[in-house]
């Protein structure tokens, strides 16, 4: 008799989702799916609003990485107000936005690694869930927990100084930014009391990378083998091939490293990317047009970014990048759990970039906004913490938004997450007569590697109950377990 297992909600991720796993009579996984069960509707209800509201309004769809939406929308509107397609801002405008963005990447990655993922690594995937959580981390590894909290705080303070608020600020406006960095703010970030200063953040970032590398050494089989699968990878890269989280051209490589999207202008993204709708999820499935629905899916996020870029333009992160690349002999890294390694290298890169920017005098003086000939349509793309984020807007002659299309990072990772769920289910549940909590968590660990933001909302820390339901072919409930 076929069994259907439901994991709902998935915990320690942002937002609400559930997993269904079908097991056939022989105990094999016949189908598994990650369902996104929320509907947000922002693309519709911004229509009719004045275009300059978009960066402030649309960021409200997320409480974890609103800066990414804020900046992607602002970049799209830069095009509309005639400020160019990413390189036309004043030095102050672009650098303040970059600082905001690196602060965002830094705090979001810190939140994910220290708060959401570290319990799995420190206590084990199948450890008692009563211990395997952030409170358990605080009790057993207080130094690490404090480090995570303070790193997140530092990033949030950077966001506040550039956007006006830690969450949902208003700093980025069409054509630039609305404020300079003050001397006081600059001093506090560069020379603030320990540990809240940039040198400490860089030092802690190095420690975090080393922690992961040491864990990898001792848990090679798990880190390398768990939910690993070949895929294409997509991100923006700087025109010279450098890792650039704020602006660049679209590049994709296949599982062997062959370029399949050749550094194209993201204003033309619709020529290369399409989205498929499936009736069991509110999340669409993007794919590269010329490779089709079956083979055109790709991964985004830290792993993808380190697979697409040629180098990292900051010395300490570059050194780590070289080690990371050497592990796969320069070929794309297709191991899902290496997402954590890549994410921590990006934390280090963000910290280094913040230091460079904080020492840049352009942040404290100079013109804030530039405008030119208005256009009716614009696309903004940014590398959000979770991956490539597309915002596309069109306006009418009255300055009202008439169209919005958002492809958020997690949407880009929809198919890869489903593949990872399937692999984890097969690895841990095939042939098992009894489904344990540890097996269910293994499925979540696979999803968690992608740091999905399922609704772009603030739900985390495993406070929601995890429920598993066993049903027979006729949908009769055989067994139910809640954590």
């Amino acid at each position, binding site marked *: 008799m076929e069994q259907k297992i439901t994991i709902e909600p998935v915990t320690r991720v942002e937002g609400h989702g559930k997993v269904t796993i079908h097991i056939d009579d022989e105990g094999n996984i016949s189908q598994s799916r990650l369902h996104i069960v929320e509907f947000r509707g922002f693309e519709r209800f911004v229509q009719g609003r004045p275009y*300059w509201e978009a960066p*402030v309004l649309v960021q409200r769809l997320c409480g974890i990485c609103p800066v990414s939406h804020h900046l992607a929308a602002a970049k799209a509107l830069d095009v509309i107000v005639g400020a160019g397609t990413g390189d036309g801002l004043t030095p102050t405008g672009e650098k303040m936005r970059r600082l905001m963005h690196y602060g965002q990447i830094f705090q979001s990655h810190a939140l994910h690694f220290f708060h959401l993922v570290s319990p799995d690594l420190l206590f084990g995937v199948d450890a008692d869930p009563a211990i395997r959580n952030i409170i358990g981390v605080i009790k057993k590894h207080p130094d690490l927990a404090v480090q995570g909290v303070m790193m997140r705080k530092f990033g949030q303070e950077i966001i506040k100084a550039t*956007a006006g608020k830690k969450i949902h600020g208003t700093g980025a406006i*069409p054509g630039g930014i*609305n404020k300079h960095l003050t001397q006081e703010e600059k001093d506090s970030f560069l020379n603030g009391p320990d540990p809240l200063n940039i040198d400490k953040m860089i030092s802690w970032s190095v420690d975090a990378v080393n922690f992961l590398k040491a864990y990898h050494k001792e848990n090679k089989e798990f880190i390398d083998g768990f939910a690993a699968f070949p895929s294409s990878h997509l991100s923006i890269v700087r025109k010279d091939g450098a890792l650039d989280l704020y602006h660049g051209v679209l590049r994709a490589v296949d599982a062997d490293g062959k370029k399949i999207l050749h550094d194209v202008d993201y204003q033309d993204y619709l020529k290369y990317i399409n989205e498929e709708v499936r009736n069991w999820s509110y999340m669409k499935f993007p794919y590269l047009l010329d490779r089709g629905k079956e083979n055109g899916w790709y991964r985004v996020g830290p792993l993808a970014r380190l697979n697409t870029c040629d180098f990292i333009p900051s010395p300490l992160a570059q050194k780590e990048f070289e080690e990371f690349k050497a592990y796969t002999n320069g070929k794309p890294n297709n191991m899902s759990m290496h997402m954590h390694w890549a994410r921590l290298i990006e934390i280090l890169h963000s910290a280094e970039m913040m230091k460079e920017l904080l020492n840049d005098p352009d942040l404290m003086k100079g013109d804030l906004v530039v405008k030119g000939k208005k256009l009716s349509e614009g696309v903004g793309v940014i590398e959000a913490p979770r991956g490539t984020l597309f915002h596309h807007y069109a306006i009418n002659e009255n*300055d*009202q938004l008439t169209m919005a299309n958002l492809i958020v990072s997690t949407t880009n990772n929809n198919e890869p997450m489903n593949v990872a769920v399937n692999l984890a289910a097969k690895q841990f549940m095939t042939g098992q007569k009894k489904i344990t909590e540890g097996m269910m968590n293994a499925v979540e660990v696979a999803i968690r590697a992608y740091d999905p933001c399922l609704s772009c909302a603030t739900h985390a820390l495993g406070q929601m109950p995890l429920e598993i339901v066993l049903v027979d072919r006729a949908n009769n409930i055989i067994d139910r377990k809640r954590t």
Partner: protein
Amino acid sequence: MSLIKRIFSSKTEENISGEQKKEYSENEDHKNTNKSNVMNDKIKFTIDGKECKADKGANLVEAAKANGIFIPTLCHLEGVKPAGSCRICNVKINGRFMTACTTEIADGMMIENNTTDIQELRNIIIETLFVSGNHYCPACEKSGNCELQALGYRYKMLVPRFPFEFEEKVVDASTPKIFIDRNRCILCKRCVRSLKTKDGKSIFAINGRGHKAMINIDHELANKMTDEEAQNAMDTCPVGSILKKERGYVDPIGSRKYDKKPIGSEIESVNK
């Protein structure tokens, strides 16, 4: 009588007694002349038991302000003939509710302003205004500079006790300099009363009556508005109903009018 009925049945400019009625003039010169004649004629009165003095001819809002006391307003605008339409400035004068902006100060008045029942009435008005429109502060560019939001904070409104109406109102984006969002309009008529062309023509007007009342613009005149006039219109509006186009969010958070101090504190800091 319910609180709401009491407040909306209180005296307005049209029905207050003759001795309390102020002879307002729309003509600024006339007003100044009128003021200069009574400049030294001080009136004595009390607000919440505090003995106060003010110039003869001042309305209660101005008189209270001169004594470091804040009476909240929304429709009132200095230098413009009061309308008494928003009712937020209701005070009790000798035991009766009256709108402070339309009432001229008189000798011996005993005014109650900061009492529990008056605060409750004000809270009801603020909450009513919030639920009758779509005041989505988080994305409104007037946030931080909005008088309705500032009063909501001052009177510690957490959530309205009334159900939201969410009536969809049409926005008017058809003129080149201003964007009219009727979802946020509180029908205070500040724009109607104060924004005129150089030859005295009204750019704004109220169309319809009752719940169908809505702000409207003379498109021909609005099409000729300068950037300065558009900015003035935005600043005149106490909420985010009139927006100057393409200006959005230029004031950083932290430097907006009510970011650091609550509304009214600039008045209350005087004479302390």
